């Protein structure tokens, strides 16, 4: 790992590295910085009433959340592929040693089994934290999630439920992930009544939202933007705290344009806010949706009624993406307040490409163009 970092900094390691081993992601960051649309993470400050903080990156904050969960809830278990040694993204590092191998354990390589296993544990009253190694591989579990987890409470008249299940998966573009290590599948799950879908934008958010999901009495899917695992660093509260689900957050206040995103894209739009202010004198209000389902439409509607202009951006493909749901609701609820049609800046309707990634992404330039369109309509 240290060798890799040294190679990158020296400029020698410039070929893209593919494969499931994420050990290289942090070291890739140095190379990514040279690209035009590279990500830079702006650290946030935690509310002071959450107590003592320490510097953590995203995977450390997620590790901390699970540490807290297992410490406070004796029924909590973590399982999935490779979680015992610490996980391919280090999210479970140290937890098997601390809590024992029957509480943090590897499963066979079978996502439908992992999901089904999680459901059964939750039905019995244990807190089940299931890890899917990449969101791209969650699809074998789709039947268990859609037909079982989401419907357990409803179909049994609340006699049984699997509310104590939380499924975590790394999602999103990472610079070289291509088709099968970059997907953002939130839209598929938003369409399933009965589950919650949550995506954090940084370490503080991740810890608070993950703890909220674990405590929430509904099956939750927690998607973690993998590019932020090492790239996002801030001072995160060390103790137990939660952030509210189904509550969007106004990250930047503004009056001319509303921008809605989640996960990594919030960071991209932060830059667009700055660009809009500097180059166009336009004040943007940036909203992080945080929970995709059930989503906080009230906050978005309130904002669009104020600004009259909406931009929604996400990495997932345009058609049927969650921006469509936001746009549809806004045109219905804010019709007479709108000064321009809703702009959606999303991935193209293609599988996630390898060499073409920089062209595929809804980067700050494409988003900035959309802001101009909104202003000049």
């Amino acid at each position: 790992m240290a060798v890799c970092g040294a190679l990158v900094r020296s400029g020698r390691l410039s070929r893209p590295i593919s494969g499931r081993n994420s050990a290289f992601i942090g070291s890739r960051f140095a190379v990514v910085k040279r690209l035009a649309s590279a990500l830079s993470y702006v650290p946030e400050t935690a509310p002071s009433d959450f107590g003592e903080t320490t510097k953590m990156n995203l995977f450390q904050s997620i590790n901390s959340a699970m540490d807290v969960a297992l410490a406070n809830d004796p029924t909590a278990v973590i399982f999935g592929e490779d979680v015992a040694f610490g996980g391919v993204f280090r999210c479970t590092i140290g937890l098997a040693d601390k809590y024992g191998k029957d509480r943090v354990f590897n499963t066979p390589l079978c996502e439908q089994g992992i999901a089904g296993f999680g459901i059964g544990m939750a039905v019995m009253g244990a807190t089940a934290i299931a890890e899917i190694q990449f969101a791209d591989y969650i699809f074998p579990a789709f039947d268990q999630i859609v037909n079982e987890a989401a419907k357990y409470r409803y179909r049994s008249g609340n006699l049984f439920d699997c509310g104590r299940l939380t499924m975590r998966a790394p999602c999103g573009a990472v610079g070289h992930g291509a088709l099968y290590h970059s997907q953002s599948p939130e839209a598929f799950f938003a369409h399933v009544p009965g589950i919650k879908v949550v995506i954090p934008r940084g370490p503080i958010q991740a810890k608070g939202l993950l703890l909220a999901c674990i405590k929430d009495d509904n099956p939750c899917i927690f998607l973690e933007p993998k590019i932020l695992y090492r790239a996002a660093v801030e001072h995160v509260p060390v103790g137990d705290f939660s952030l509210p689900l189904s509550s969007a957050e106004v990250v930047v206040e503004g009056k001319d344009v509303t921008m809605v995103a989640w996960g990594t894209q919030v960071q991209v739009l932060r830059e667009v806010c700055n660009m809009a202010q500097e180059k166009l004198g336009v004040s943007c209000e940036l909203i992080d949706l945080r929970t995709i389902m059930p989503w906080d439409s009230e906050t978005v509607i309130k904002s669009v009624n104020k600004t009259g202009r909406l931009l929604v951006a996400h990495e997932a493909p345009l058609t049927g993406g969650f921006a469509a749901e936001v746009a549809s609701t806004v045109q219905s609820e804010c019709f007479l307040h709108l000064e321009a049609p809703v702009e959606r800046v999303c991935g193209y309707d293609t599988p996630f490409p390898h060499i073409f990634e920089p062209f595929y992404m809804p980067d700050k330039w494409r988003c900035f163009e959309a802001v101009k369109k909104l202003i000049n309509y």
Partner: protein
Amino acid sequence: MLVTTSMAGVRRLLGAVGKSLKQGVSEASSNLPFMQTTYGFTKKLQSTYAAGFDDDRPQFPGTGSKVRFTEKLEFHLPDTSRTIPVYRVIDRQGEILDPTQKPGLTQDVVLDMYRKMVLLNTLDGIMLNVQRQGRITFYMTNYGEEAAHMGSAAALDPADVIFGQYREAGVFLWRGFTLDDMMNQCFSTHRDVHKGRMVPINYGSRDINFVSMSSPLATQMPQAASAAYAMRMSGKPLCVACYFGDGASSEGDAHAGFNFAATLDCPLIFFCRNNGYAISTPTSEQYRGDGIASRAIGYGISTIRVDGNDVFAVYNATKAAREVCIKESKPVLIEAMTYRIGDHSTSDDSTIYRSSEEVHHFKQDSPITRLQTYLTKNNLWDSDKETAYREEAKSKVLEAFHGAKDRKKPPISDLLTDVYDRMPAHLESQAADVIQRPIPRTRLHGGTQGCMMM
């Protein structure tokens, strides 16, 4: 008779045992192989590594240490001449073949088994007609599988948690699920514990520890594995039983269930009802190997094949499997060979794909007939008792039917509740929309209902 609700107890015990697990290994599971290795690969091969490659044995992590090399190029063939035999206790003439295999059941229990099998049979006959009359939308009979139900259910502890597929009504009856409970579910009345949300025969009950069933096949199998894992974590000397059919065992979830149960030391009884058909697909088109029993070996799971029409054989096998599960914290597979005498469901007409001669043939050795023969030979039953009980069963079923058939349905607001633990804002506005609409007149409230294909 009240049965303990084990699931609330499991929740409490999970907490208590979880605290003691902080140190690493629980008392209950300290002898389990997977608990003893950090990363099994390293520890397993340590002794092999010590010998170096001078020891001329395979040293691959993927096989056990007892494996040997061979210089002979030969394929191991699926040996159709040595299929797993079918364990039985009573032959087709009602005789116990090996007296040591006579189950330790009292006369009363055996008679209760028989009566419940007849009750189930009677219920099925009446409900089949009820569906044909359009009063319920759908029904599945259990013809031919009554012994598989009663024999296995009787061998379990009432606190063992059960996951089912859909053709396990006899297990429900054995555990105390009432005819009223069944009728309320089939008619989707306001007394249905499921609040009228599922099609008929998808029963479930917390009181009797039988998790509510769903339509997708085999999804319950990995769920049952982890329920068993949780059961083991709780330290209670109980197991989980998971029923599924020959068709469901082809699903990916079946593979997942077997593999997870084996690798994670789950005290789980996999009970396969191999009734010869998955709707119209005979087992000859479902698999090429030796049924489902042989697959268990591949997963490292102990297996037995039983005569599913022999209630004593089913009972003995389930009892023995249960002991192994609990004592050794591992799964066991029972493949109960039987025959689906009825159609798959009321949406199926099996005369299209199988002959009436075939069905008639198997009807002659139905589980009810087999047990009846045994009981009669042992002077525990006769034709008068049979007539009297059939009448009693019929009147019980009809009483429950009459209670349910005109009973009110659940309130319309139940359409939107229980999607989440608390109703979210977007559903509240949708709920307001539903409530104020006039009630649509549907066929479900009376009149003929078209066949629902499923």
